[in-house]
């Protein structure tokens, strides 16, 4: 790929507690900020940690500052949530490929839960010539973020039900050229199916358990169709963004 990956101990510049489960973490790195593209991610850890790094997507950037949005789901993310401005964060990145950025198209963004941050960054980087509609789904109010159309499983915010309802509605109204999605696998799978049915180009950002993050260990394999063959690609290096048509679902 030829893209450079950097390992730096960076300073936390800002933290935002969004709600009980989600927080933002901002760090400063002119070098990474310059390289960063939407869809890419970082492998981060607090210095001295003995555990694997935690893969986290880029969410936003302001000049030298890079923002991430993180959901507390276990020990590692809980530990990250205790960081304060001035603390050190050991970052490897930017990692992985990025989304296609169309111009002058109708674009459907779809995010589920913590799939929100990469979509946010993609949206910001899309040319103004595009017309964008963003459907977001979450389990409850906590997982609901400001988008054009919000669904929650329990109806505590936006419409009740799965985001796929909103996706299908949007696509069935027609006119979309592109669908970009990030979120849980069932959502992505449905997006791929709908995109195919409605003949919309589709790029999905996948997740996988990761170790190296740079394409050497083959730990983060995902089955991808390539010239009618099924091969295992690395989510960390060949992805995380894949053409929706090529993903082989479990």
């Amino acid at each position, binding site marked *: 790929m030829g893209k450079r990956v950097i390992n730096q101990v960076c300073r936390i510049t800002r933290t935002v507690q969004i709600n009980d489960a989600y927080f933002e973490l901002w760090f400063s790195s002119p070098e990474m900020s310059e390289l960063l593209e939407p869809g890419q991610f970082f492998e981060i850890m607090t210095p001295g940690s003995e555990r694997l790094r935690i893969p986290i997507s880029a969410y936003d950037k302001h000049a030298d500052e890079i923002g991430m949005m993180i959901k507390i789901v276990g020990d590692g993310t809980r530990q990250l949530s205790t960081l304060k401005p001035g603390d050190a964060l050991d970052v490897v990145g930017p990692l992985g490929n990025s989304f296609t950025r169309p111009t002058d198209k109708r674009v459907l963004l779809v995010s589920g839960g913590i799939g929100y941050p990469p979509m946010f960054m993609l949206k910001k980087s899309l040319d103004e010539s595009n017309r964008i509609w963003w459907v977001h789904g979450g389990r409850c109010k906590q997982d609901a973020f400001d988008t054009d159309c919000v669904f929650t499983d329990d109806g505590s915010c936006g419409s009740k039900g799965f985001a796929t309802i909103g996706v299908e509605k949007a696509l069935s109204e027609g006119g979309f050229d592109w669908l970009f999605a990030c979120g849980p696998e069932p959502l992505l799978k449905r997006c791929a199916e709908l995109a195919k049915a409605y003949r919309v180009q589709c790029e999905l950002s996948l997740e996988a358990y990761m170790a*190296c993050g740079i394409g050497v260990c083959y730990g983060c*394999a995902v089955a991808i169709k390539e010239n009618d063959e099924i091969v*295992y690609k690395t989510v960390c290096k060949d992805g995380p963004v894949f053409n929706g048509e090529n993903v082989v679902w479990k």
Partner: protein
Amino acid sequence: MEMTARLGKLTLKNPVTVASGTFGINYADFFDLSRLGALVTKTITMDPRQGNKPPRLFETECGLLNSIGLQNPGLEGFLRDDLPRYREFDTPILVSFSGNSIGQFRKMLERMESFEGIAGYEVNVSCPNVEKEGLAFGTDPKVVYELTRELAKITERELIVKLSPNVTDIVAIARAAEEGGATTIALINTLIGMAIDWQTGKSRIARGGAGYSGRAIKPVALFQVFRVAQNVRIPILAMGGISTWQDALEFFYAGASAVAIGTRNFVQPDATIQIIDGLRDFLINNDQTLSDIIGKVNGIES
């Protein structure tokens, strides 16, 4: 500071290399790979391999489970695409490879012999032997002896045999490799472990059992290195949970001539460099050389 290490036929600029499968050229983004004592490649097989179904990774409380299944581009793909890139670095290249029969091992080695820029081989005997009902090569001293002898016949290069720790008698296997003509013993490959999601009963790894590496296995590796060092004359390349230069020192005391860093690379991409620097500083501060330490474990009374 003089830190050269003798490893069989090679003299390395320092005693630190990488464990097969945990490292690759991409690490050149983080530091100059020429600083390594040697570079061990991921294990390659004759034909390309797809590897195992995901999920392939799970981190346990103190170690890592992996079930990669030797995904690799095959020998020809490696020789064509990867070897030239490895050769750009000023450090000996050790090609890790594996076959499903002694014949296939031999064919692979013969093919590689005709390529420049390979300093030696690391023979991965943890794979199933199709001629012996799929039992891993590395579990039977006779097979290890025969395999090593066949390979030793056809190469003058460094010939490392890397052993699996999952055997009743590691010394018997190590001796078989030595008698067969191995010039270095590498150990240990991964233990075998498993993890299950207690909430759902789902195996964390699609295959069930998986290679177990990292900090948790260090005491096991250290003991096996010690045992083998007491019983063979050829040098030992030690690996298994080494994360710091202090860990490396333990292995030298136990009898290792060089160490390889594996799982730790994932946490700290320049772990090898930190270990090299830490060892150098330690030796300077204590006015010692490696040979003052290698095999010099003390305090053992039975």
